[in-house]
């Protein structure tokens, strides 16, 4: 399981790649959105290592054993629930949702993905959603 530093290195790497694709002109709204989401995930997973959640991978495995769920929620859904339920994370719930929705539309080319497929959407995901997540995690000394 990845340690705090590994999550941070990957998060920053993803963010740099998204930045390169976005600036000065957006060359791929699809990839900027997807990579921004994966950058956010790594920042959040790094933060989790400093909370009782610990490693999300292990938390998820334990949850599946403990709850004996018939339909297993995805790891992204579990992360979403942790964010929604912890007052230290809820401030960026909306941003996580923006990034997740955009990323899923592009990755699976869901009907209507063209609805998001523009530079403005990708730029807002990168400049607002991802940056707010980072900012809030920093403000709470998680990263």
């Amino acid at each position, binding site marked *: 399981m990845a340690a705090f530093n590994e999550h941070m290195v990957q998060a920053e790497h993803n963010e740099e790649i998204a930045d390169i694709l976005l600036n000065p002109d957006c060359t791929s709204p699809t990839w900027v959105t997807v990579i921004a989401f994966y950058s956010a995930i790594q920042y959040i997973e790094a933060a989790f290592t400093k909370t009782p959640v610990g490693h999300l991978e292990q938390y998820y495995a334990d949850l599946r054993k403990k*709850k004996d*769920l*018939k*339909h297993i*929620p995805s790891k992204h*859904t579990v992360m979403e*629930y942790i964010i*929604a339920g912890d*007052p230290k994370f*809820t*401030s960026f*719930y*909306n941003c996580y*949702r*923006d990034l997740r*929705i*955009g990323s899923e539309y592009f990755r699976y080319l*869901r*009907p*209507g993905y*063209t*609805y*998001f497929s*523009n530079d403005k*959407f990708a730029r*807002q995901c990168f400049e*607002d959603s991802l940056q707010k997540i980072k900012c809030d995690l920093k403000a709470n000394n998680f990263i």
Partner: protein
Amino acid sequence: MLNGLEQSCSASNIGIYSFIQFALLGELKKATESIKGQRRHNAEGTLLKYFTDMGINGDYLDINTSEEDQAWRRFTRMMIDDNMLIYQSLEAFRIYNEISEIYYSLEDDTVEFFILIDKEEYDFNFMHELFSIERIVKKMWDGKYLDFHYVPTNYIDRSILYGYHIGFKRG
């Protein structure tokens, strides 16, 4: 306190829809007034307890419920069965004119909603309003995972809705 309420509350004597709407607007007095029925006083007492743990934080409403304090979830669960929870969940969204249709599926552990939106592009502010409601709806369900999917009405491939129940259709 909850035991007494368990015997006295039913879905019909609380206006969850109005309650949520007024609460989101910060109209705490009107929200408590939306509670109806003979046992209003008891129900109001419980909900007032939550108002003290409730705050408008930016664009959304926070109802703080710790792992130890599950009373809010128990409160909604004991008075509302799954079908009624579906109904209440839909009610919270349908006030938006931009929402044209809502579909859902209810499995043992998960509930999925497909919310069709009459918009031509992703509207961050509008979506954040929906996410605020989404968070409240999640808290109304106990022990189930909810997944919300938002799809533009004009672009949806309706075959993906096969097997889902229609919950709401405008007009």
